[in-house]
């Protein structure tokens, strides 16, 4: 299995050492974005090519962060986001959601909780992948 397990809500504090309030502050600090600027127009989710695969839609992730709902940190959304920036070019409030998603990933990755397991990749899988895919995946999903 390439992917590691999803985090459960009750484990967030043990893993990160932070409350949801601290996590939201940290996300704002790492991303340089104001998550409260979002007024839930839904443009990001309407244009997101990965929305269908996400437990929480992009706009819902921002809302969950606004109300410190742990689901923001347990949903698969941050890992499914491909930093394609469709949301950023469309956001009327200028929120760089790709940066918010990256900050969320970093909360876990900086605790050495990798999302992609290097040892889980088989030789066959690596052989068929171009370096560009492997490097970017490891950059986005390993700490």
């Amino acid at each position, binding site marked *: 299995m*390439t*992917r590691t397990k999803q985090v459960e809500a009750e484990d967030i504090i043990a893993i990160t050492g932070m409350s949801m309030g601290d996590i939201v502050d940290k996300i704002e*600090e*790492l*991303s*340089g974005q104001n998550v409260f600027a979002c007024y839930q127009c839904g443009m990001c989710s309407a244009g997101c*090519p*990965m929305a269908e*695969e996400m437990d929480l839609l992009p706009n819902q992730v921002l809302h969950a962060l606004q109300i410190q709902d742990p689901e923001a940190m347990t949903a698969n959304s941050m890992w*499914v986001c*491909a*930093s*394609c*920036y*469709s949301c*950023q*070019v469309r956001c009327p409030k200028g929120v*760089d959601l*790709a*940066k918010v998603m*990256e*900050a969320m990933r*970093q909360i876990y990755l900086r605790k050495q909780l990798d*999302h*992609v397991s290097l040892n889980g*990749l088989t030789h066959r*899988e690596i052989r*068929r*992948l*171009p*370096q*560009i*895919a*492997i*490097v*970017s*995946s490891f*950059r*986005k*999903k390993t700490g």
Partner: protein
Amino acid sequence: MEKLTYFPGCTLKDTARDFEISGMAVMEALGYELAELERWNCCGTVFSLTEDDLMHQVAPVRDLIRAQEAGSEEIVTLCSMCYATLKRASLFVNGNQERLDKLNAFMNKEVDYEGKVNVVHLLEVLRDRIGWDAIEDRVSRPLDGLTVAPFYGCTLLRPKEIAIDDPEAPTVLQDLAAAVGATPVDYPFAVECCGAYQVVDHRDIVIERTHRIMSAARRADADVVVTSCPLCHYNLSDTQKELVRTVPDYKEMPIIYFTQLMALAFGVDAGKIPTALRAKLKRLQPAKREG
């Protein structure tokens, strides 16, 4: 022959070799040499998005230093992921003395980066410096009758500050296709994401993306999809093989790099061209194709 300081990136030396071969050939035909940097490292492929992370800027900035060492204030890339990473890194540090000082102090074995190198994509060179007319003049085998669906992907157009064209309604690939005699088509997925690096651990998503993108191109009567991103190229072509096996009546769509499209029209080395496209061209240009 005018020299352009060229940054290839890892994938153009491996799975995307045809991109480099055709790129070199068409640029030579237009009177330009893509002069590869003597030393370079992987740009990192994706731009680091956290404010406090300078470590992941070291790789792209080191490449900017290589250009500076080569006496150039410009790097030209073919790979659109390299373009975005290097371009964003240049915007991140150029003119920001605090970041430059930190990075220069860390890279104490390198000459100091002065913050002057600009990053451009080959499509910008073609459009803004060479121009569509000059490209049209160089065409020896016009691709009349060939219908081309441009696939921009993400990194040429987004985020806004690095877009080489209108992020929502770009035309550069259409204009290029028209210049070489082909017919560009509009279809709804031209600027969508292929799933990128999700192919490593969410391959299912990329298969689904490919299905939609390719079906839309097919509905627009495209003969070929043209891209500038080696990861889009890989994702679309590799997962298509799975679609051919699993989806009834799915017909494989050829995918090539924009430089290959030009090389076909110029009659220079285009690298490996998918058989279906070769066959199509043979039908379109029976008299002009030798041997």
